[in-house]
């Protein structure tokens, strides 16, 4: 395989499509559950995004390598086993070597298994494509998921707690002295849904072809 074909136009679109035109969260509306649960602060959102990137890429490649050997009747189970094993491995390694990060992640690690984006990509893409393409697809979709997560967390932490990554930005800017107050609503899950909604709205304003016509 020449280097050209490694980053052919098709392969590039595998990586970039999920960031916008085919975003798993805002277009396919998958993975909303975790997007609500862990976007109160930036830090867990970033850690979650990184973990999903890892699990999604590896799971896609592993399933793609096995695609010709997997019996179609138990393929969903096989996919689940691959994802669950990877998640357990990640969790155990984190606990042993980077204990603080593992504490930060705590419940989210388990949530990765239930993230339907991962299984969706395995089923829809990795089962039918080569490992390299699957890797790019996994990377693209994980980034597509990750940036929405981080964008939502950015606004929720900033407006809800007045901090960014734990750093008291608004306090340093002195806006509290002008009578500003944190909006406690932003901390609560419903506002995550509203924030995702606003992102979808802005995205469709910019990208008209996403608007469905009946």
């Amino acid at each position: 395989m020449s280097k050209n074909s490694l980053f052919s136009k098709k392969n590039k679109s595998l990586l970039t499509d999920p960031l916008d035109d085919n975003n798993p969260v805002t277009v396919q509306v998958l993975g909303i559950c975790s997007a609500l649960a862990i976007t109160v602060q930036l830090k867990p959102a970033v850690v979650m995004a990184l973990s999903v990137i890892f699990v999604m890429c590896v799971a896609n490649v592993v399933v793609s390598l096995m695609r010709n050997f997997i019996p179609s009747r138990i393929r969903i189970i096989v996919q689940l086993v691959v994802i669950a094993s990877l998640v357990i491995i990640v969790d155990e390694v984190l606990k042993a070597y980077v204990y603080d990060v593992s504490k930060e992640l705590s419940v989210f690690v388990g949530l990765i298994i239930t993230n339907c984006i991962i299984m969706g990509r395995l089923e829809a893409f990795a089962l039918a494509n080569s490992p390299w393409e699957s890797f790019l697809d996994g990377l693209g979709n994980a980034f597509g998921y990750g940036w929405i997560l981080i964008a939502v967390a950015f606004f929720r932490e900033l407006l809800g707690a007045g901090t960014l990554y734990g750093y008291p930005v608004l306090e340093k800017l002195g806006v509290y002295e002008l009578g500003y107050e944190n909006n406690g609503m932003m901390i609560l899950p419903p506002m995550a849904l509203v924030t995702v909604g606003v992102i979808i709205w802005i995205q469709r304003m910019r990208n008209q072809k996403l608007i469905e016509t009946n």
Partner: protein
Amino acid sequence: MNVNKNSYTIGFACVMVVFVAALLASMSIQLTPLQDRNIELEKKQNILQSVGVIVDRDESEKYYSQFIKEELVIDNNGEILDGSAFDIDLGDELKKDIKNQKLPLYISMLEDSSECYIIPLRGKGLWGPIWGYIALKEDINTVFGAVFAHKSETPGLGAEINQSFFQEPFRDKLIFDENNEFVSITVKKGGATEGSMHEVDGISGGTITSDGVTDMIKERVSRYIPYLEQNKLVEIDSTIITNLISQLNE
């Protein structure tokens, strides 16, 4: 090769299960000692934190032996039992009947050579266990410090109990009221009453976890009162005796 034959499907499933089981089991065996060590160091770090000694996890071993003078195992009647307090798993103890529970207690010697009684806590949060340590000063009434941790509370809400803004207000609160009745410390939804010595602010959106902290402190600390009362009496006795002696000498 026909991958959709029944025999192949069953064979594939068997091989997969055995392979994954072996992989995960060997990983777990390899990593468990490292994980246990992290947990042990963190426990020491938390105990130290409750008496205001903030150290890195890696250094907690050294400081632990320096500051923690005594580890005791007692029972609900205040009797001292045999055994190592550090190795007691409170999660297991809590499942037992209170009469059979072993209660670990740590006594620390601070830099000003005053003693602190550190009581390990464990209770229920919203999603899972919460735990912590509360350190009482020599008067067995004033809180010297408290530290809390949790397994799976909601980030940004209940999970905030491990933050210093939540833990700091416990300092200098009293667990007994003016009539010497045990009242514990309440985490109050909507904020503590101004000037109250027995209340601290709750966490907005984390009420169930906050209530869990309240219940945990009340339940756990009350178990130690028989032992602590004994010590309190001894303390008073010794001061009376020294006073008597000094009076006699005069």
